[in-house]
């Protein structure tokens, strides 16, 4: 009954707005008005128009007519810009480092800097974040630091994200309220509903914290997307869903990913407040996510933000996107719709930025990243015994213990004689002695 009321509230509001409410009454147990006219609908805007996109700055950094610029001062704007620039600096270097075979994998965020940094800035730093894999910028905004980024990507002994167990870009940090990335897509979406529900049940966080959940438009095709939004609206939970619609799921363009009006059109289906925002406009993202967060807290219910952006980079270092899209398409997008350039032009128009500052920033960021890279490169992996830890909490089961023993025995027997193991052992802190000498 509660559910029916909730639905009818939504439905009747929609119909009333359009002036279609009828005098023929409504269905029992529902406020859905009875009408005599057979009328199919296929729009959440009530017209042929697509869902509009919220924007603040135009392509050259000027506020569009009627736009409200979110409250920011020079210092804050500089912080936003620096972080937007840090992403490509890191991406360029780590991409080459992967190409040199020094790390196994990497994913860049080229083209999505405004979506990631703008949304990170709109959140509180202790909002729980459940990311997909392209949201390293959120961690950087929260002060995760370059050494931690490098340690994870190199999987070295300082990798606190996962002790070298996961592929690069699978960050995680309880300190930064950033849940560890999992490769399977969309699994974080229903989890965010549970995280948010728990926040609601935590007295000192119920009025101030939300769960922010990132995913791509491709991941939104998974069953978990629908399950997650359904749960976070039906069992009300302050989960803020941020869809990065970057146009591609590996090779599959969004035109082959869904037939409807993007991801945003699905929000009203779950009865939740929804907005589409220009994801390449950092001020629009900042403003939209701030307001989305406010609603999320106020209503204690899910809110959906669809950020429209463009994946300028390849899907990952394993992908060559020019096999399925024209190089010129990418070059055009970089030129006409560059989120970093757009914000720089705005900063310059405010007198907050100039060529000199740009030069200084780029040199400094590059030097910082190179220093962190060189440090990470020189470090060893964690101890080999970490292979067997953390499978369970509490006492380790017999099979894990015995298998650890078995490997130790094999290493004692063959660790010197079998070249592949001999060479590999040197890469670990203490060269496997934690197992050998146990």
């Amino acid at each position, binding site marked *: 009954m509660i559910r029916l009321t909730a639905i009818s509230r939504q439905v009747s509001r929609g119909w009333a707005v359009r002036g279609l409410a009828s005098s023929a009454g409504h269905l029992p147990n529902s406020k859905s008005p009875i009408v005599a006219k057979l009328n199919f609908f296929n729009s959440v805007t009530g017209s042929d128009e697509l869902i509009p996109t919220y924007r603040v700055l135009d392509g050259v950094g000027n506020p569009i007519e009627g736009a409200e610029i979110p409250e920011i001062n020079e210092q804050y704007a500089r912080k936003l810009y620096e972080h937007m620039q840090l992403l490509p600096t890191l991406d360029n270097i780590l991409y080459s480092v992967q190409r040199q075979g020094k790390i196994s994998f990497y994913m860049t965020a080229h083209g999505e800097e405004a979506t990631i940094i703008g949304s990170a800035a709109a959140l509180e730093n202790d909002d729980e974040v459940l990311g997909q894999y392209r949201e390293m910028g959120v961690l950087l905004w929260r002060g995760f630091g370059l050494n931690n980024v490098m340690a994870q990507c190199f999987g070295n002994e300082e990798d606190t994200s996962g002790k070298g167990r996961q592929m690069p870009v699978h960050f995680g940090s309880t300190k930064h309220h950033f849940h560890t990335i999992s*490769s*399977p897509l969309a699994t974080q979406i229903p989890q965010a509903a549970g995280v948010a529900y728990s926040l609601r049940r935590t007295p000192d966080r119920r009025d101030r914290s939300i769960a922010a959940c990132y995913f791509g438009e491709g991941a939104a095709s*998974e069953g978990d997307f629908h399950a997650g939004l359904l749960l976070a609206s039906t069992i009300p939970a302050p989960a803020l869903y941020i869809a990065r619609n970057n146009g591609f799921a590996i*090779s*599959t363009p969004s035109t082959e990913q869904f037939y409807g009006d993007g991801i945003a059109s699905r929000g009203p289906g779950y009865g939740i407040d929804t907005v589409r925002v220009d994801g390449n406009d950092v001020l629009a993202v900042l403003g939209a996510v701030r307001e989305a967060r406010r609603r999320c807290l106020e209503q204690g219910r899910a809110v959906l933000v669809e950020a429209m952006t463009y994946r300028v980079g390849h899907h990952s270092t394993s992908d060559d996107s020019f*096999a399925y899209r024209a190089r010129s398409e990418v070059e055009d997008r970089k030129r006409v719709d560059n989120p970093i350039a757009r914000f720089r032009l705005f900063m310059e128009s405010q007198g907050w930025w100039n060529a000199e500052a740009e030069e200084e920033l780029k040199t400094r960021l590059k030097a910082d990243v190179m220093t962190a890279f060189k440090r990470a490169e020189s470090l060893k992996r964690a101890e080999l015994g970490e*292979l*067997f830890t953390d499978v369970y909490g509490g006492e380790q089961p017999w*099979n894990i213990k015995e298998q650890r023993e078995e490997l130790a025995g094999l290493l004692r027997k063959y660790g010197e004689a079998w070249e592949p193991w001999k060479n590999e052992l040197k890469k670990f802190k203490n060269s496997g002695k934690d197992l050998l000498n146990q």
Partner: protein
Amino acid sequence: MHTTKFTVRAAKRFPSAICRWNSTAVEPPPAGGHLPSIATSQVLRTTRDAALRTPGLSWADEDSSGPSRNIVGGRETRKMNTYQAVRDAMSIALMKDDNAVVFGEDVAFGGVFRCTMGLAEEFGKERVFNTPLTEQGIAGFGIGMALMGHTAIAEIQFADYIYPAFDQLVNEAAKIRYRSGGQYNVGGLTIRTPTMSVGHGGLYHSQSPEGFFMGASGLKVVIPRSPIQAKGLLLGSIRDPNPVIFMEPKILYRSAVEQVPIDDYELPLGKAETLIPGNDLTLLTWGTPVYHCETALHMLSSPSPSMEPLVPTSLRSAKVELIDLRSILPWDVETIVESVNRTGRLVIVHEAGMTAGVGAEISAEVQKRCFLKLNAPVKRVTGWDTPVALQYEKFHIPDAIRVLDALVETLTY
């Protein structure tokens, strides 16, 4: 599901990338001799004649009412790696069966492992198409087509991502024939999925989930070891009257190369193949570890100087029987039991973890049927019961040295 997927294209650009961590493939051999690797494996059939004499091969273009023949003349072969052989099988299926379609994530541009390259151009987008990113959807869609008598060849981009489809596969595909009293079936469904480790895949690009499907009677599970096997077994799977999960070891997509018959042929499901005959021990495996086993046999018979003290001289002439299981469900109990009754010893190698892995099922059945003939306990060489951790992979996935150790231990038991 993609996610942090890497594809083989990375390996194409950097040929060493995928093999770099694979101990039997690329590590410099110790002084004393070169070990066999996938590239030089004797298991691979690299001549036309050997390819055409592949055991169990049946031409699917011959009149089935006529006597079975094994004529080598008049047949051609072409050098193919595994992804090309998989593509060749699908091309034949699409050409001969108008009701056949191929679909999955990113298949239209050729698939992340290139198995569907050019098929969309050749057969049109109605028959070879991208799906949205939903494994449960892909499996359910394929089941629906198969229910209507069509041939659905679906791709799940990585076996690690098959779990959202688990319900559709285990509760639906496996059980439809039974629950409908035989009225309905989804024999037309084949799910292809890349499986096993490559050395740097971490938790979610290294899994071997075949064991999870072993209790789902109604499904068949097949894992080929090479291009000839992939083509013949895939065509056999597509035409089998049951739904088949066809798992393709991803490291073999490029590294395993054979002369592959260009005509339409099938290899039998449910049949293991003895690759090397022997009477002292049965070494059973499937997929990628076939090659680690071959390396281990070489190390057993002619160990390098550094390994020599660790391999008892008395074992150098041991005759180990190497068997590729090929079909995981149903598995060829007859061939395995016949072999173990002869050898008295069994070592099973698989990449998945030990607990409730496929080796557990086989061990139980073998000890029941061969109890009085066994001279040593059945030994399993498997991944550990932990997730597959990136930086530790070389010590997680069973390699030649672990197989060798198991051979020595079991032969000297």
